[in-house]
């Protein structure tokens, strides 16, 4: 058992109860390894879950309440269907289903005729991908496991976020894993709960001096839009973005975060 580094007290915005939180070395380590430097701790409160976010120094970085789709006492999984139009244009993924135990939801597309499927389970989350073509177990497996891990640590209750992450994975299946791939998937699957906060002078300097990479290899118009969007959620910025550029747009947001021009904070 870990010894708490310190204990925080947070009041639940939904029911008003006071929650004591033990900040343990494991929690700090989780924040250290998280793409945005945050650890989310979940506390079930009857019909809702309080999630408190801590940074790598153990400081509180926000709290959110998620309504459960179904009361824990009657804990089957609520079936939510993804319309076939959502997966149109995907090259590799023909269909998928995901059981998000934490939300009490089973999210699934219409069954496809794919011959190849891959399934994995972690914690309260199970994910199965149906692939249009055999892209090789060794290629697909690391990506499936990465998405599974991301889903299992995501706290978004907006199901569109999960569908968008699956769409991004469709493109990633054609690439080798890279250093920040997990961050892209994590950002997409949490898009509706992450807010952009501008940092000065970095945001201003990027607008004025236009570093080459950001304006030569990303959509400069989108970069400028992000730099004018303080207070918007990532989900709002990505809405209306074509599925083909969803991934590149998430990458552009992370590129600005990586340069300290924006902070990504839990709304």
């Amino acid at each position, binding site marked *: 058992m870990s010894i708490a580094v310190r204990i925080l007290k947070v009041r639940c915005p939904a029911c008003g109860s006071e929650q004591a939180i033990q900040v343990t070395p494991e929690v700090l380590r989780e924040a250290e390894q998280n793409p945005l430097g945050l650890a989310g701790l979940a506390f079930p409160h009857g019909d809702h879950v309080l999630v408190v976010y801590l940074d790598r120094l153990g400081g509180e970085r926000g709290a959110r309440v998620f309504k459960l789709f179904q009361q824990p006492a009657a804990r089957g999984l609520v079936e939510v269907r993804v319309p076939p139009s959502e997966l149109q244009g995907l090259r590799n993924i023909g269909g998928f289903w995901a059981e998000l135990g934490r939300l009490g939801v089973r999210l699934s597309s219409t069954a496809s005729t794919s011959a190849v499927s891959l399934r994995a389970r972690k914690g309260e989350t199970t994910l199965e991908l149906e692939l249009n073509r055999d892209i090789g177990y060794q290629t697909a497996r690391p990506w499936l496991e990465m998405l599974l891990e991301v889903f299992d640590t995501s706290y978004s209750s907006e199901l569109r976020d999960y569908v968008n992450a699956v769409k991004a994975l469709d493109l990633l299946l054609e690439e080798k894993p890279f*250093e920040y791939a997990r961050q892209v998937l994590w950002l997409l699957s949490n898009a509706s709960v992450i807010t952009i906060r501008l940092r000065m002078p970095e945001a201003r*300097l990027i607008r004025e001096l236009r*570093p080459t990479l950001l304006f030569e*290899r990303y959509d400069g118009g989108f970069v400028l839009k992000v730099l004018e969007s303080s207070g918007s959620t990532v989900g709002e910025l990505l809405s209306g973005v074509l599925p083909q550029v969803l991934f590149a747009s998430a990458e552009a947001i992370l*590129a600005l975060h*990586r340069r300290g021009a924006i902070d990504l904070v839990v709304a």
Partner: protein
Amino acid sequence: MSEAIYYDMATLLIPEAVSMLREYEHPRKEELLRAGDKLRHAILSAYERTRSTPLPAEVARFREVLRYGLLSLKRVYAEDDWRSHVLFNELLYEVEAVKYLLEWSHSVLTLPPGSVLIDVNSVAPLFSSRISARTGSKVVLLLDDRLAGVSVVREVVDEYFRRYGVDGRFLRAGPSPSSEVPREAADGIFFVSLDSWALGWDSMLSAASALLKPRGLLACLLPANFREGLRTLLDFWGIPPYPEPDAAAAQLRGLRFRDVRVNRRGPFYAVVAQKR
């Protein structure tokens, strides 16, 4: 436009650098505080010379970028936040003099397709990525232990390689860049970044001599910090003074390099040379 105004601007940034230095722990804090103190008269003279002179836009940009660099130093040492260090490096590439010299180096380098290029200590490997995108060269990025241990640096390097479609990898180098790469394995070696300047001119020369194949190309972008103002300011990043361009060229010729070409702009110069 006289180059002197750049040095005056650098000199005038030293009081800001010293004042900020008091807010965080720099490994050479006392030494830098003393160095800043010694320049009191030079600072006053620079102030007198510049106070009624309108500042050209490119000098104003140079000052703004270096001023941000000082803030980035504080963020690294006080908060262990390397994001600002990455951005500072990228903004430095947007300073007109640097941009011009990198374009010039880019245009005079002729590399065959499939070359192997070594880029030393670039946390934002723009130059090697663009050359690679043009020639299809492979890039080996050598990062010293301190930089290689920073996750945001590794992510940015990966980002450059992905966005420019570079066949690249990074290697963790010990104290000397030549310790990790086979001798005479590179068709080109580049020292074009702030963190490569911290190696010093002699280390650059010995690494280039050891790692380049015969007829391999060396490209350097260097600070003209043989003159005061920039010399003390860059010392905050641990950058030693570099020789004057003519002296650097003569030294290269003495080390069996040929076709030595030098170009100077503002407080920087670029050197391109070929190993015999």
